[in-house]
């Protein structure tokens, strides 16, 4: 079937809508159907049943679930995600304050992982089982096995406590200057990026070595006298980068999840920290809002990476004519 690019994009966007609705529904059901219910969640396990009943009536929680969901969805579509039980601030504006901070952190972590993994992967594929390959493999193994909070602790121990080069907590926005901003974000970003770095490294290296071994064009290009280095960088790497776009999409959930702990540890006023604090303070509307937003971001990022793949891969972009 030959579809032009606009049609492909249009189709995917249309398919997005039921997915988004489904995600919000799951989120709502999850957080409102669990035993105990929202009222208990707000009041705490030690609440008396009387208190629970009163609060339930007050918040309209005794209405059928689907009705409540519809109310929520309708409000959400109009930009109203409820209000914080703690501060009365609108959830939407709370999110709006914190999203840019988290976004910057995410971007930084992604860049670190991506930019560092590429040269290491190329050098590893260049000489499989050589020194660089073995070290990379070791690094990847360590990266995949170390939870981000431990990496964060080690970084803090070395860089903040012993060497005193970087602050152990706190956040400075870009408006305070580039260096202060980076100073506060670099350690949390590195802590988050390690797992990603390990994944990208393994996938890239594996794909490149696979291509070198199995793809026919490799033999043909070599037989033209093209140097192995050029073959690696200009052909194999480029082809592998296509594959990794999908991996980036798949792992975005992990990256976002990583913000939860890391922001809490480093006191970065982002979305992850908001989630943790609102869970502790039993601020149900905020928890709902944050969780659903995270899920939606994951869905959107996956859509974007899929489309990116379609746009960049010349086989898809230009279609076959013969």
């Amino acid at each position, binding site marked *: 079937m030959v579809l032009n690019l606009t049609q492909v994009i249009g189709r995917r966007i249309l398919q997005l809508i*039921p*997915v988004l609705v*489904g*995600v919000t529904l*799951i*989120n709502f059901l*999850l*957080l409102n159907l*669990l*035993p*105990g219910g929202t009222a208990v*969640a707000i009041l705490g*396990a030690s609440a008396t049943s009387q208190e629970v009943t009163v609060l339930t009536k007050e918040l309209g929680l005794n209405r059928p679930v689907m009705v409540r969901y519809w109310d929520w969805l309708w409000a959400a579509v109009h930009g109203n995600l409820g209000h914080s039980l703690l501060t009365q601030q609108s959830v939407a504006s709370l999110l709006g304050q914190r999203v840019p901070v988290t976004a910057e952190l995410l971007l930084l972590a992604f860049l670190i992982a991506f930019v560092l993994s590429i040269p290491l992967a190329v050098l590893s594929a260049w000489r499989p089982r050589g020194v660089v390959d073995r070290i990379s493999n070791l690094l990847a*193994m*360590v990266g*995949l*096995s*170390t*939870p*981000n*909070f*431990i990496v964060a*602790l080690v970084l*803090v*121990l070395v860089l903040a*406590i*012993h060497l005193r080069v970087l602050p152990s907590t706190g956040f400075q926005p870009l408006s305070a200057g580039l260096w202060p901003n980076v100073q506060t974000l670099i350690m949390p970003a590195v802590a988050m990026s390690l*797992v*990603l770095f*390990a*994944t990208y490294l*393994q*996938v890239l290296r*594996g*794909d490149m070595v696979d291509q070198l071994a199995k793809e026919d064009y490799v033999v043909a290009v070599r037989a033209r006298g093209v140097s192995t280095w050029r073959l690696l960088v200009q052909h194999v790497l480029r082809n592998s980068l296509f*594959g990794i776009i*999908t*991996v980036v999409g*798949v*792992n975005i*959930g*992990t990256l*976002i*999840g*990583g913000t*939860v*702990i890391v922001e*809490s540890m480093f006191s970065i006023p982002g979305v992850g920290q908001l*989630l*943790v604090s609102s*869970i*502790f303070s039993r601020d149900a509307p905020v*928890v709902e809002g944050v*969780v659903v937003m*995270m*899920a*939606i971001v*994951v*869905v959107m990022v*996956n859509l974007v990476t899929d489309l990116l793949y379609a746009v960049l891969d010349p086989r898809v972009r230009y279609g076959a004519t013969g």
Partner: protein
Amino acid sequence: MALQASDAVVPGLGLPSLRSRLRGLDLWVPAAVLAAMAVACFLVPLFGHVPGPNAGVLSQTRLPPLSRGHLLGTDTLGNDLLSRCLYGGQVSIEVGLGSVALGLMAGGVLGILAGYKGAIYDSSIMRLLDMILAFPPLVLALAVASYLGPNEQDVIFAIAFFTTPATARLARAQTLKLREREFIVAAELAGHKAWYILRRHVVPNVAPSLLTFGLTLVAVAMIIEAALDFLGLGIRPPEPSWGSMIASGQSYLSTSPWIVFVPTGFLFVTVTSLNLLGNALRTRWARS
């Protein structure tokens, strides 16, 4: 914590050549380490002379490793770190295995069904599971665990929300690949019932890669559990768990780093061994 693209590998046909494949250091060393860890965590507290995990004395707080009576030192309350790590290991292992076992069963069934039956089963099941997968694993577990309560069973249930769709996706992919193979088509043409084909042909072929994937999932599940505990939303003190031990040791990171790094070591060794074992199995299956 991340799922790798290499996690989906077409399995070899059947088990007979299992023995020939189960050789090699890269497989047995991590397996041995894991066995040792399991034995240590479950049997040593039963039969060995290990002080209780909460039997700490305030005069013996923050003793370094290799102190008298405390092989790995004590924490901020004087509790023996070795003992707490072993008991905590029980929790981690139970949560890891439990959530993955649930996920393998539920996800395996769903995925194989979706892959084999196709059409409406496939799209509806997978749509639903894909939507669940849109929630970052830790966030999902956090939300569920915080509402359900900080006890072990509920943490297992919470993490199973993630392991189920992850497994289902792999099971479905494997089943789809298998479906095209001649022997499945032949069996269908021979008039066998779907149940029979599934039981006799599909499941035995999909199971090995699911189990290998399960190993990696256990590692992921253990890290999520540790993260939950670290945040204080999973297993809480005085109940021992690696994550909460690391959290409580934070403030003494520079003065008594062992409080953080002893449980870290346990977690790291376990997770690394799981990953290495998973890799070793995967390369063996891929070779066939």
